[in-house]
């Protein structure tokens, strides 16, 4: 059933894939343990999305009914503007590596077609007598990420065990960097273009969000449910390297939080630190949320920021929308509790996309004690400053730098530049730049105004060609080569064909198999007799006069009064009546204007 659905509507692939994915182990197990039920049966809700959704829906309705009772009067008086929201985010990203963090088994992402439990070294299955062997190469993408996020790479960091029982955690602990993370004190700048709301910018060009630390750690195994009560554990992902990025609580709007996550994803992709984005489960986020009344100082502090209200944590958000909506929901909940004279409990909460409220998973009393302990098998991680310097020097262009360059070199608008830079993992940008290069060499020095060409190509790549591809996969199969597109645009710019013709050519090319035998753009233009053969000046006048004669009444209303609309009607008629590609609207307009003035 699900397979059919996916085939019929490719766009649902992402959402269903991410809902199949089981939540991170720590959350699941903490939650299960805190509720005391950890049987296979009770774990069902996570892997039966529909049932869970229905259940959550029912719960939400119940909660709504509750708030609609006596409290409603108060909640209606909620004054959100009096409250300041404070948010910090933790983002988990799967690193792009060839092997696992502590074994030479291939990493899950490097071999996504592997049969379950085939990419498993003895240590990954926690066989007796096995030990971790740190794989130095996994450090490279982690370091690139840390550098791109402006962090200080620590010369010495360490490995710690975080203990909890769950079947997706074979050793009974996760190896992470709790006491000494490898990177600290980073910062990210966000602007309105990134999605920061005006209020949050408060007149400034940009805001900076501090990154407290980045740590490396192991991913968990994957659980799949085989109804009614069988669960399969696939260890291929167990031990895959992750980084956890922890920001300071310096975010003050839900949109900014989502913008930050989006920006981090963009940066991680641009430096090749991670393979898949949030939509494919390569990124997951936890957010901590607190509110306090403006002008007052709360009594809580964390991450070095004081004066905050009591915070709650919302775990395992797997989309940007979920981050934003969860924060909105939790902000509203906290404000209404506080305004009703209540107290916020430090607790862990969950959020389902589409819900209007977060739900309590466990309170402080249900807190799992992770019993962090340094891993005595692993020596400290010592990172030389020469390696960091080398990676800094060879770091790929970051998204903000790309956008600035596109605007400067190709004269693209900020919006187009951002879109181009973010599409298709940079493939689209590469395609565009290659096309501009080809076009410049074709058109010779006179017309080599890079900005103009860049703008034209940008427009074709983004809008004309872009309109034909609605998903990333379609783009990957784009049958139109850079050479063909450059030829096409060259013909338009040299007024050999009209834009309309060019667009039609694009569509017909799209349907022709790209087997090397298909005709070139020039051939297509010749074969279709599409080349623009402009009418002579006399022919223009003749055609215009003919149409005017047929429509004397319109001429009367149009003449002398500069009704542009009427004038353009005549131009349109001229284009329509003549053979395709023979009338240039600009020229036709001049002729019509002149005749109307004389009439």
């Amino acid at each position, binding site marked *: 059933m699900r397979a059919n659905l996916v085939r019929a509507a490719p766009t649902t692939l992402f959402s269903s894939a991410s809902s199949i994915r089981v939540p991170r182990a720590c959350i699941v197990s903490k939650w299960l343990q805190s509720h005391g039920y950890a049987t296979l*049966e009770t774990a069902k809700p996570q892997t039966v999305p529909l049932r869970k959704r229905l259940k959550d829906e029912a719960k939400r309705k119940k909660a709504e009914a509750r708030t609609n009772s006596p409290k409603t009067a108060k909640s209606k008086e909620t004054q959100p503007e009096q409250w300041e929201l404070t948010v910090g985010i933790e983002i988990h990203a799967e690193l792009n590596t060839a092997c696992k963090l502590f074994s030479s088994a291939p990493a899950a992402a490097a071999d996504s077609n592997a049969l379950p439990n085939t990419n498993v070294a003895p240590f990954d299955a926690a*066989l007796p007598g096995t030990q971790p062997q740190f794989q130095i190469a996994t450090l490279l993408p982690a370091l690139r990420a840390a550098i791109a996020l402006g962090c200080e790479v620590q010369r010495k960091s360490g490995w710690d065990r975080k*203990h909890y029982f769950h*079947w997706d955690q074979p050793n009974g602990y996760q190896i992470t960097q709790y006491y000494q993370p490898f990177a600290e004190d980073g910062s990210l700048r966000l602007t309105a273009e990134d999605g920061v709301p005006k209020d949050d910018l408060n007149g400034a060009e940009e805001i900076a969000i501090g990154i407290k630390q980045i740590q490396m750690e192991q991913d968990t195994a994957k659980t799949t449910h085989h109804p009614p009560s069988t669960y399969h554990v696939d260890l291929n992902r167990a031990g895959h390297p992750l980084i956890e990025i922890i920001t300071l609580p310096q975010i003050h709007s839900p949109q900014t939080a989502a913008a930050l996550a989006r920006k981090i994803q963009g940066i991680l992709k641009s430096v090749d630190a991670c393979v898949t984005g949030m939509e494919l489960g390569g990124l997951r986020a936890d957010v901590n949320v607190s509110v306090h009344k403006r002008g007052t100082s709360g009594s809580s502090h964390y991450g070095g920021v004081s004066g905050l209200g009591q915070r709650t944590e919302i775990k395992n958000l797997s989309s940007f929308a979920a981050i934003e909506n969860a924060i909105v929901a939790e902000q509203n909940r906290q404000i209404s509790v506080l305004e009703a004279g209540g107290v916020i409990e430090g607790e862990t909460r969950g959020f389902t996309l589409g819900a209007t409220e977060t739900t309590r998973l466990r309170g402080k009393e249900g807190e799992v004690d992770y*019993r962090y*302990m340094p891993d005595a098998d692993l020596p400290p991680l010592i990172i030389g400053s020469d390696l960091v310097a080398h990676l800094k020097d060879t770091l790929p262009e970051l998204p903000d730098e790309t956008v600035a360059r596109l605007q400067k070199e190709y004269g693209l608008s900020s919006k187009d530049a951002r879109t181009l830079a973010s599409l298709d993992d940079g493939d689209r940008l590469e395609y565009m730049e290659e096309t501009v290069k080809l076009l410049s060499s074709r058109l010779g020095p006179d017309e080599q105004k890079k900005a103009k060409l860049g703008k034209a190509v940008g427009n074709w790549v983004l809008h004309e060609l872009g309109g034909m591809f609605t998903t990333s996969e379609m783009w990957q199969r784009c049958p139109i080569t850079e050479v063909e597109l450059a030829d096409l645009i060259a013909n338009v710019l040299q007024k050999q064909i009209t834009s309309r013709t060019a667009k039609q050519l694009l569509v017909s090319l799209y349907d022709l198999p790209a087997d090397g035998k298909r005709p070139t753009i020039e051939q297509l233009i010749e074969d279709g007799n599409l080349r623009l053969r402009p009418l002579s000046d006399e022919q223009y006048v003749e055609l215009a006069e003919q149409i005017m004669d047929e429509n004397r009444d319109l001429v009367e209303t149009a003449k002398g009064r500069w009704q542009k609309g009427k004038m353009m009607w005549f131009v349109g008629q001229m284009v329509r009546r003549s053979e395709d590609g023979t009338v240039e609207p600009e020229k036709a307009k001049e002729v019509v204007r002149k005749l109307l003035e004389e009439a």
Partner: protein
Amino acid sequence: MNAIINEINTPTPHSTGSLKGKTIAIKDNIVTTSTPTTAASKTIHNYTSPFDATVVELLRSHGASISSKTNLDEFGMGSHSQQSFFGPTVSPFKRHGVALSAGGSSGGSAVAVAQGQVWAALGTDTGGSVRLPAAWTGVVGFKPSYGLLSRWGVIQYANSLDTVGILSRRVADARTVFEALNVFDSQDPTSLPRSVRQRIAARKERNSAKGLRIGVPTSYIISELSPAVRAAYSSTLTSLQNSGHTLIPIDSPTTQQALLAYYILAPAEASSNLAKYDGIRYGFRPPGPDARPKLNMPLYATTRGQGFGDEVQRRILLGAYTLSSEAMGNYFLQAQKIRRLVQQDFDRVFAMSHPLHDNATSSTGDESGKGVDIILTPTAPILPPTIEEVEQQSAVERYMNDVFTVPPSLAGLPAASVPVALPVSVQAELGADDVKTAGMQVIGQFGDDELVLEAAEIVEGLR
């Protein structure tokens, strides 16, 4: 005696090398592909490893014939080899007709060697598990410096302390096995790298056998030291002095705290290392779902509750507690500090500096400022108790046997237990079936394993 859990019948195909034709037993917490490796636990009583431990491969490649897997205290946790899923191992010696404790946890290996069933045996030594059974069964037990012998394939108990140790009848045999195993192994992240091994090798062209400066820790003359062991210790020291060695009283103020620190750190690491035994991927698992939410029994409570024996459960619980966020500061961190003090205590008295430490604690040595070459202590404060006495002991009383073996373990130092004859007067008081020897422990500076073996040979040769 119940020393053997599994016999290995596969003959060694080729036999050349330093261990040619020698039969060697392996403690059953070191994995082998040819037979199950059980750690004497119900949890993995039917588990067979898909790979051989590095030390097992090395023994074979030097021509040894691996003859059997020996009994132990479950996962190496115990001092009497009584806590085994396969039943207790007992010593061949008896007192008034009652079997004596073989010591633990490598009791099976010690008994197999003592009885001549094998030429030598591998054990593991975390806080004395090779040295104590060696002392109580009258054989040689050698625990090398931490990091010299590979732990790949050694089932972890407390991985910052675990070492592979060797049991044999003669010190020379222990050396032969040690030399075969003493190589770097990239599969063990705590294996000392070649560069450090070379540094260690380069610096010990010092005084050997003749004229050792022997440290005698005054604080080891504790009230628990039995008259018999004390007599053996005194006569050994006297003999050494008579042979031209110098006895130097040394101060080691942390001896008593060391035992406390050990029984915090080892269980803490055990609670972590044994978390993997959940019955999911291998090992014992009771039928039915393993959780009883209504009875407040979370995941794996049944599997682990039934799979582990009492002593293992005790140490896991102890460790889980000392690692908990409430208790960590008072126990685990304090114990780590004591561990550091113990290391500094040793560094202060040895003439040779620690090859892994910067000159943070430079050796001040004794009054003459020269420092000692080795330290000599009894291996255990008492002669082996009978198994009946063991049964009546509390857990804490049992832990007391490790008081002399734990300090070098905490510091990662090489130490060997050598049997010395009990004075005739003591032997006369004991019955004919009783032990005739007591174990003396030679401790050396980190990396000074060769000197420890030489000194052990000197002690062995005293008469």
